[in-house]
């Protein structure tokens, strides 16, 4: 009873006061109860893939949005996760419960391997250098077709779970957990240092902070999460193939994140949850599907260069000029210091 009251108070003072947080809570709750209302396996499939790609996008946001290490080769981590889980499953008979985490860990290692040589590269150079990694892995995949399946990929992988609803809860649960953990990480001291490295690495180093360690950390965590999503993807679709390493597989998380708003974590979540289902709606007009998609992205970037989610958040909340506390847009005085809020 007492605990409940604490929870109630927390809800009241920390969540209900801010529209964006209410929105997030409603969103999470809706995702969790959805299968109770609709068992439509097409809808669930779209949402499962959306959840998997959300993790992928968020991992890019951590590395590029926060730490400023723009990667155009993120498909490497996704593909390493997918191929590792697939190979462990088909060659060694490992169950998804072990294979998926191992896939993620392997992708984390690949993050380290990519991160070390890339430490010396800045900005555009880094972006373009990382582009090379998935293409090189594609070369390796085709060089050993007996092992990797070449263009056919690896198939006959164990299904993620026996029913669509269970798969849904695995995907959505993992996604919510990962997003929460990354949110925690980015609002911690580490996140602050990531921000600072992006803005001015020299200054951060001058403060006595070992930036190399933090950059590698960003690469590893990002690789881990992207690998996790790749491994889930492989077990969900029951295949892992060279299309996982495509140029566009690398571009997708960038599109979703920039569209939703970079360096926010909730931005890429918004981006994927809007854009991925949008592509499904656009199936109604197959000839114009990609055209409308591209136009949509261009228009949003043109009108809201900071991304969609931060713009919405700014409409819903305003910052107190005095104490920097966020307030709901309906308030005229700050909820903390009572000072006047500018309309």
């Amino acid at each position, binding site marked *: 009873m007492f605990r409940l009251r604490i929870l109630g108070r927390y809800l009241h003072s920390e969540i209900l006061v801010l529209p964006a947080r209410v929105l997030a809570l409603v969103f999470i709750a809706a995702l969790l109860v959805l299968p109770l209302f609709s068992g439509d396996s097409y809808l669930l499939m779209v949402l499962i893939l959306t959840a998997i790609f959300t993790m992928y996008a968020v991992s890019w946001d951590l590395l590029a949005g926060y730490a400023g290490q723009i990667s155009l080769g993120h498909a490497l981590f996704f593909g390493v996760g997918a191929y590792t889980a697939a190979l462990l499953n088909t060659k060694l008979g490992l169950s998804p419960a072990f294979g998926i985490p191992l896939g993620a860990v392997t992708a984390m290692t690949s993050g380290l391997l990519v991160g070390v040589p890339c430490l010396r*590269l*800045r900005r*555009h150079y880094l972006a373009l250098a990382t582009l090379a990694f998935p293409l090189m892995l594609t070369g390796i995949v085709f060089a050993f077709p007996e092992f990797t399946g070449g263009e056919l990929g690896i198939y006959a992988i164990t299904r993620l779970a026996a029913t669509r609803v269970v798969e849904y809860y695995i995907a959505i649960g993992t996604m919510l957990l990962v997003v929460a953990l990354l949110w925690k990480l980015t609002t911690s001291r580490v996140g602050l240092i990531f921000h600072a490295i992006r803005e001015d690495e020299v200054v951060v180093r001058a403060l006595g902070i070992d930036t190399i360690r933090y950059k590698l950390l960003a690469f590893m965590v990002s690789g881990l999460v992207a690998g996790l999503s790749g491994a889930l993807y492989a077990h969900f679709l029951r295949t892992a193939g060279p299309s996982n390493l495509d140029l566009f597989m690398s571009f997708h998380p960038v599109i979703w994140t*920039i569209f939703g708003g970079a360096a926010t974590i909730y931005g890429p979540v918004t981006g994927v949850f809007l854009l991925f289902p949008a592509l499904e709606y656009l199936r109604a007009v197959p000839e114009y599907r990609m*055209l409308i*998609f*591209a136009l949509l992205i*261009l228009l949003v970037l*043109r009108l809201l*260069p900071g991304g969609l989610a931060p713009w919405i958040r700014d409409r819903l909340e305003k910052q107190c000029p005095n104490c920097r506390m966020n307030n709901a847009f309906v308030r005229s005085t700050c909820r903390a210091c009572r000072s006047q809020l500018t309309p």
Partner: protein
Amino acid sequence: MIFADILIDGLVRSGVYAMLALGFALVFGVGRVLNLAHTAFFMVASYGIFYFVGIGTGMPLAIVLSSIGVVAVGLLLYKLFLESVREMEATVLIASLASAVLLQELMLLFFGRQYGRVPEVFSGFTRILGVRVGNQELATLALAVLCLVGMWVLLSRTRLGLAIRTSAQDPEVANLMGINVSRVVQVVVALGILLAALAGAAVAPLITVEPHLWMDRLVIVLAAVVLGGLGSLKGSILGAVILAFAEAFVVFLLPGGSYLRTAVAMAIMLGVFLARPEGLFGAGIEEES
């Protein structure tokens, strides 16, 4: 004998790569815009040739018309979607990528799934050192050399070239000197697109014109430009030549592995990076920021 093969094959490959890389490097060097739609302009230009030759304008007029058209479309896209987000690197990447997809889909819409074919202007082939080289390829190579020389003259011998070089070196000082930097950037963007358009026009008879052909060229161009050092013009040309010859080496010395062409090109780029993080001719990092 095999070295003659490699030499000829590498040279033929170099021409188009160099034209594309130079245009890309120019736009980046002066405008600081990493334009992923660069090779999409190349693609649209080859469609332009396909269209104009199809309605019977003849090749020279087709090249002129499609170049003008592509430059106009490119400038429009630049003004609409890229100029305002120039300062945000990741946003530029996505805006230019979306522009490329937009162009790709528009071509698909206008020309359908019917692939384009452009007849050669110069048919037949010539034997050089025992290697069969198509006359169209020789013409393409000649056009590439012409364009590169023209660009060099423009940059080093004209007032516009001076303004461009000044703006590239230090936009703020250039601004103080009375140069309208954003106008210069627009001119450079137009020049870059023009190079891409001419390259597209030159190779149109040698390729199957289809909406997705910009993607694999984009990878090579990016690698070449980065290899040479971002923003360095001679670096980008050198990078293009190196990658072209690397591909030729792979094909002739490792016949069972010629599918590894792209992977090897990428490995070379990374190798150079490990030794010189700023590319072959790039400004040092300190100078860059």
